[in-house]
């Protein structure tokens, strides 16, 4: 009964977040409600188990990687600003860009979106996607549906296509190059209503 109701004044550092992420005040309020709904035990922060409790997420083959992307640098707690900052990656691109070349890159720029995806592949954060890491992702996405040989041949093909400097791993630049023509804007954006 009675939905949670927050106002923008309840949320700490809302102004800063709005500036940084480009979300509107209404979005921030809404995301804050969602954050508190996910925090079932009212700890004041989120932990990986709270994400694990989302049923739809559990059917996603790469759910642990996505959760890992929220809890980067080995932390076990996620506060609201970090939550919003990561979600800001998925904001559609604003057509209005500041002309100032010294201003920091927007969180939802193409480059930052690609970096986010890169870390889903690169679990040990060494800046390269090794063959092993690629195999792990494929295994997660396909599991019992294909044989181990098929997995290896798929990984082999993918590395050959993308690995330009022949070091048997895909660096961030090679990754970006291979996705040059892909319209990631559309596929990596979530339409936040109003």
């Amino acid at each position, binding site marked *: *009964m*009675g*939905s949670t*109701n927050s*106002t923008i004044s309840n949320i700490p550092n809302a102004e800063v977040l709005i500036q940084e992420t480009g979300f509107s*005040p*209404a979005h921030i*309020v*809404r*995301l804050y409600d*969602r954050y508190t*709904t*996910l925090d*079932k035990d009212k700890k004041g922060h989120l932990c990986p188990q709270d*994400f694990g409790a*989302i*049923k*739809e*997420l*559990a*059917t*996603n*083959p*790469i*759910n642990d990687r*996505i959760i890992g992307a929220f809890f980067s640098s080995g932390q076990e707690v996620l506060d609201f600003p970090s939550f919003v900052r990561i*979600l800001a990656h*998925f904001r559609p691109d604003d057509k209005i860009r500041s002309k100032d070349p010294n201003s920091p890159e927007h969180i939802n720029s193409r480059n930052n979106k690609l970096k*986010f*995806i890169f870390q*889903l*592949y690169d679990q040990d954060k060494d800046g390269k996607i090794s063959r092993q890491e690629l195999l792990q*992702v*494929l295994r997660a*996405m*396909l*599991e*019992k*549906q*294909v044989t181990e040989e*098929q997995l290896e041949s*798929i990984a082999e*093909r*993918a590395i050959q296509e*993308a690995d330009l400097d022949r070091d048997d791993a895909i660096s961030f630049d090679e*990754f970006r190059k*291979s*996705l040059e*023509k*892909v*319209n*990631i804007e*559309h*596929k*990596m*954006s*979530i*339409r*936040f*209503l109003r």
Partner: protein
Amino acid sequence: MESYLFPFDSLLCMFLGISFTVWFTLLLIFIIVPAVFGVSFGIRRLYMKSLLKIFEWATLRMERGAREKNQQLYKPYSNGIIAKEPASLEQEIQEVRRSGSGLPPPEPEFDMSDIFYFCRRGVESIVDDEVTKRFTAEELESWNLLTRSNYNFHHISTRLTVLWGAGVLIRYGILLPLRVTLAFTGVGLLVVLTSIIGLLPNGWIKSFLSEKAHLMCYRICVRALTAIITYHDSENKPKNGGICVANHTSPIDVIILASDGCYAMVGQVHGGLMGVIQRAMVKASPHIWFERSEVKDRHLVAKRLSDHVADKTKLPILIFPEGTCINNTSVMMFKKGSFEIGCTVYPVAIKYDPRFGDAFWNSSKFGMVNYLLHMMSSWAIVCSVWYLPPMRREEDEDAVHFANRVKAAIARKGGLADLLWDGGLKREKVKKVFKEEQQKLYSKVLVGGSEDS
């Protein structure tokens, strides 16, 4: 000292005595007597119409006030924060690849961009997922003067604040005590009457009296909640020897259905006040109460239900197959147990109007007493009940399929979303099967494509 207090004292007593008598008489005439005979003065509908007008005025006032102050009015969308695209896995992955290569037929190979689909879907479900939002209360477009469901109550205007204050006074000062009195009367009468009727020998007179007594007490309880119920298609009302299934939003569903017809209830034996009521009810007419240990034994449960149904003199059984309270925007998976019994099923759809008071019971957030308090201090509970035509399980149909058929019919009639998800997901983990589905779909894009060519 005492001498000059004395006249005031007696005056006070007299005053209290008179007002109490007047109040109780009014109560009797306008509420209890009609409930006994099953007629209605139409007071509640009038009340409902006037409330609606006030709410509309309040919402308009709020919007105007917000515009004047240039504040952003936060409108809750009942669809969620984000717009999800309904495209399937195959479509989406092909689209991404096509945009990259520019070739018409996409190669059935792995592409680094394939992960985008899963990543986006994953983050979408973090922001807004179908299941979690069914277990929180539905959000409203207009404000119904209950602070529990407003986002913009910022002292926008003094007039609104005054109205809200008056609303609180009326609800807690007048309506709540009135309803509590009625509730006690209703429950008390139920226990007393059923115990008396229970002393009679089984026969035609007993069933007749028991029916009248049950109906009367439930009608008093309905007035105790100021529930304004519209029954549709009463020609499809459940008959003896059948099972009535309905969607579940709150414990009040039982009272709503039982005030229009007689049912045999099914449930666990409770202690305390509930237990007293249960024991009294079962004396007058055969209800099915299970001990806690018996609930686990599915065969025992099925057998008792079948036996009851086979006896044509016994009342239809009332069952809520979802197994838990859902927030009345959707219908979740029905448990197949009641559909295996093989008798006529009478589906019933219940839809609450959320503008007057939210009937959903979030059992993880509020206890029963808290919930009843909320219910009795709302403006009213307005709902519609549709009796759907009876359905039978077909020759080659299995229980799960039948259950889904019934569920779809109920969802369609009540205007609720028909969901595949299990209501038990409120507390349990998703089965591995669902994850494998996703993997199967993706592998078809990769490997299946090459088999076709």
